[in-house]
């Protein structure tokens, strides 16, 4: 009997606890839904996401160390006789090859990003992806740049080939980027050929849909979609993707238009946070600047050739007149100083 009453008491206490916990969970959810982004529960959540992002970043860095530790364990367990110099050398070469391959791949990825920056004329910082969402319902990534690097909420994030999302949460050294494929995402875009404005939205099935177009501006398959900058949510003029399907039989007035994104975050390790995107005349200005640089380089090359010619005419030393000018009387290196007349600068020798 005492045992029974103890069990009954325990079961009763557990039921009370169960109800209290359910009420607490519902209360938390209600407060979370009603408070703003700056509310206390959101703040705690952001702090926790920051910590988990750092853990994820550290663990990503530990990948190489784990592999190295694995090699050490392998070597320790191996028969001593089998560890010949050749095998060690082979292992070393393999390790170096793997490292080189890793560096090569990273260099290629960074080169692609650099090319994108050059061709799109965007200014931004390259960030590493250090974490991904721990939840199927949330399509987001964590990058290793934060407010300390100048990142602000709302900035556009690009891969090597196009827009992938937007910064939605910023901490000191990390930021959360909501991907375009997230159902909560929406980017103001326009069809490049017709300049028709619309909105690209993510969806639960992972596709991007182009919506809110005028009925008389239905695009064709193959049309390119770029950000329009309307509403200020995304920088303008950045490529989003290509239209791959236009289903005019769908229920809404403009049908169902599917956009294939130019870039996918699932394959990326680095991204660019766009600080500045060009206006309409930026490309022309950049080309004019490049032309000026080219001219200056050409002039410099001609000057070098003239100098070389003068050297051939007057001998191996510098042109005496220029020597006089550069190192002569009245200058810093002039007559009567350590570097002056009759010294290394060869005024006397030239004459």
């Amino acid at each position: 009997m005492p045992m029974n009453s103890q069990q009954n008491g325990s079961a009763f206490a557990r039921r009370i606890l169960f109800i209290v916990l359910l009420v607490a969970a519902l209360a938390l959810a209600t407060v979370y839904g009603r408070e703003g982004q700056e509310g206390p529960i959101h703040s705690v959540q952001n702090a926790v996401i920051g910590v988990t992002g750092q853990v994820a970043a550290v663990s990503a860095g530990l990948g190489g160390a784990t592999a190295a530790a694995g090699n050490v364990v392998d070597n320790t367990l191996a028969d001593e006789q089998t560890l010949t110099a050749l095998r060690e050398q082979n292992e070393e070469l393999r390790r170096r090859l793997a490292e080189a391959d890793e560096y090569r791949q990273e260099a290629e990825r960074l080169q692609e990003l650099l090319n994108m920056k050059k061709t799109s004329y965007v200014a931004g910082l390259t960030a590493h992806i250090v974490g991904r969402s721990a939840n199927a319902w949330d399509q987001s990534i964590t990058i290793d740049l934060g407010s300390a690097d100048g990142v602000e909420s709302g900035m556009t994030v690009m891969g090597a080939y196009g827009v992938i999302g937007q910064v939605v949460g910023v901490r000191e050294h990390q930021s959360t980027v909501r991907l375009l494929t997230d159902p909560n995402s929406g980017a103001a875009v326009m069809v490049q050929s017709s300049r028709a404005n619309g909105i690209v939205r993510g969806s639960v099935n992972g596709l991007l849909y182009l919506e809110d177009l005028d009925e008389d501006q239905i695009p064709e398959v193959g049309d390119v979609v770029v950000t329009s900058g309307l509403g200020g949510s995304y920088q303008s003029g950045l490529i989003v993707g290509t239209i791959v399907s236009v289903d005019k039989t769908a229920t809404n007035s403009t049908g169902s238009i599917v956009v294939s994104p130019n870039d996918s975050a699932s394959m990326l390790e680095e991204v660019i946070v766009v600080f500045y995107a060009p206006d309409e005349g930026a490309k022309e200005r950049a080309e004019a600047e490049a032309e000026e640089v080219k001219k200056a380089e050409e002039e410099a090359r001609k000057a070098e050739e003239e100098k070389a010619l003068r050297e051939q005419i007057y001998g191996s030393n510098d042109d005496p007149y220029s020597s006089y000018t550069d190192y002569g009387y009245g200058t810093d290196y002039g007559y009567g100083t350590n570097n002056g007349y009759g010294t290394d600068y060869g005024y006397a020798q030239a004459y």
Partner: protein
Amino acid sequence: MITSERIFIVAGAVLSVLLQVLVAPHIALFGGMAFPNVIVVFTMLVAVTRPAQFNPILPFVLGLVFDLISGGPVGAMAFSLTVFSVVTALFVSRMSNDTSFVEIISLAIGLLLVELTYGVFLMLFGYPVDFLGALAYRVVPCFLYDFFLGAVLYPLVSRFLKTSNAQLMGFGQLR
């Protein structure tokens, strides 16, 4: 009292959180539609393998941790997991049928209900998706992945928790 069973549960809980953060995002399938929920799987495994001793604090805490690390509405998973892990434990306990079949079926139903309730919660919070879309593209794929993981881990968890519990209580069977 600190028992090996409690140590196992605490260690398993910590490990499941780490796996959720570090590993789960990298083993998601179909572009992230089928996403393993290690925290839910572990909690439900504990619920079905030791139903009589199942304490609602475990699902509440783990659900809350999930809410905090996943960026979803705080309280949603805590509520879903607490309700259905306790109900599942109660069901298995009432069945008084210590067979793996009952436990695995209960595990499957519990996992599906947790994923479904969490999805409904998100929709209530304004997640822009219709019910069928959520069911087809999130709830069912995630449930299938969870159930696969649960079925794989069930022998391990079941063996450890039932053995340690039997030793602790001094008789051959848990119930």
